[in-house]
């Protein structure tokens, strides 16, 4: 279930409590759109991976550039053609517990 208007940005970030605020704060203060967030730690927990569901609008290039400027963001990549279903399935994932 892919929406053509949306894309996923994959971030590798330093894993600490403030990093999510740096990212969501960027979206709110620059009035960028943010449709969904998924986050999990990777490996030994030094870094995390964050997946952002964003709208493919004219601001997308600016979003990526601004994310690249954040010191705690180590890597930014725009995922073409990825399956976005997981963003709509989160309630079911939690129900399974």
């Amino acid at each position, binding site marked *: 279930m892919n929406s053509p208007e949306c894309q996923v940005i994959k971030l590798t970030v330093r894993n600490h409590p403030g990093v999510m605020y*740096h990212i969501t704060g960027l979206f709110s203060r620059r009035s960028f759109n943010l449709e969904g967030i998924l986050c999990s730690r990777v490996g030994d927990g030094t870094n995390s991976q964050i997946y952002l569901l964003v709208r493919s609008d004219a601001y997308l290039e600016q979003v990526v550039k601004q994310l*690249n*400027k954040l*010191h705690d963001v180590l890597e930014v990549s725009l995922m073409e053609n990825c399956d976005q279903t997981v963003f709509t399935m989160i309630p079911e994932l939690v129900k399974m517990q």
Partner: protein
Amino acid sequence: MMYSGAEIIVKMLEQQGVGIVTGIPGGANLPLYDALAQSSITHVLARHEQGAGFIAQGIARSTGRAAVCLATSGPGATNLITAIADAKMDSVPLIAITGQVSSDLIGSDAFQEVDMYGLTVPISKHNYLVGSVEDLLDILPEAFEIAESGRPGPVVIDVPKDIQIKTINIEEWPRLREKNKGGKPDDIKITQAADLINRSQRPLLYIGGGIVNSQAHHVVRKLAYKSSIPVVSTLMGLGCFPTDDPLFLGMLGMHGSRYTNYIVNKADLLIALGVRFDDRATGSINKFCPGASVIHVDIDPSEIDKIKSSNVSVTGDARAILERLLPRIHQRQRLEWEHYIAGLKRRFPFQMPGKNDLFHPINIIQRLGNLADADAIITTDVGQHQMWVAQSYPFKAPRTLLTSGSLGTMGFGLPAAIGAALVNPGKRVLCFSGDGSLLMNIQELATLADWQLDITIILFNNGHLGLVRQQQELFYGRNYIASKFQTNPDFAGIARHFGIRGYNLEDDKESIFLLHQSISQPGPCLVNVPVDYAANVYPMVPPGKAIYEMIGGEGHE
């Protein structure tokens, strides 16, 4: 050897070459101050943390190196906020080290606890809440590297009190980190840019603060001369190109001269160097240089195509890029373009006040500009006086104008002047201010009295928030509200009671002598200049209009 967190911070500041820090002690940063007492670093005690923040900015803006301010937790930290935000907006390298309540109290609403990390996320280049003493060894050098690298900016380090106190054993100190100048510029794009310049008929250099930061002013001048390209500057770029140079067309934008803004509109190629197309410079962006191709050079990739899309863009250090560009530029004259510009200059010159209007700020500014040494440093506050200085002070070198450009912080001028004077002994510092602005950080007169610095405060006193009054006159049907002060203090008397010479400029022959004296006698002084409250800054581009749609400034009214 065992070192406490506070000692580590002080040691690493010394290692960075920091000679002066400024701030105010309080409960949560007392361990840091305790360690500072044993250090070679000079501490300048401000009277309000915002003053400390702007003193540090005065140091940073006049030297280009990161400067340090200190505050305690809670109100001390929040008082720094405006100076940090100001540094972010104007790309100033600033290190703010704040005390925080002890780690075990964080989150408990403890006395003088405030979430400084959270508060400074949107207004700093980067920020830290220090989690352990060991982390300081990485954080301090990294903070300086971030503040000074690429596009400079403020870095906040919030240090819980227990981490300042805890000791660890240190055998070897980390090495200094290199300042990152940005990667190698794209050669193909530089060739494309050169090609556009060589083919253009009416090119224009549009320069800003990035030229100051990359020390590219010499190469900008060579480029302008080689290809006969006129130059306009933003507020932040003033000083990079000598004001009296025939190729210099002054500041563009909201309070640019008529001829300047008309010429900008006629360019067929805009060579934008270290600028970010700020709305005060461009007016309505859709009507800004509609017929021009754009070359954009900036160290911050996110500025490229953010406001105005470019035909060719080169990301990186402006100086490095221009040095590669220069050999590819053909030497040429542009007689037709020069002729056109000369015509516009004749038809729409900058309107000077009458020579007999002795106390018109522009006349005072120019008189002081002629009297002061070429290396004098000018600071301003924010408002009409700031724009009059930008329009008419004869700047000759970069880093001689320190002004709050983007955030537009009233109260900036006096503490910034103190910071500049502290690190520029032998140079006169002139602080142009207004009665509204000066009162916003007037307590720093006490700091100035402590240090007896060579600062002259020229106070243009019109008893109003002048630029607010002007906008109410022009855009709010003369519905004046809250722009006139009901009382106005005796500023010369205030200065004297702080221990600083204070003068009132009287309307007589003595006034020229007094002005001369104010910048030649050692030590600080304040000169109160009574100004006609009805004097407006012209021309002015109304909000939302194109820069060629100015009001005022056509001729003598």
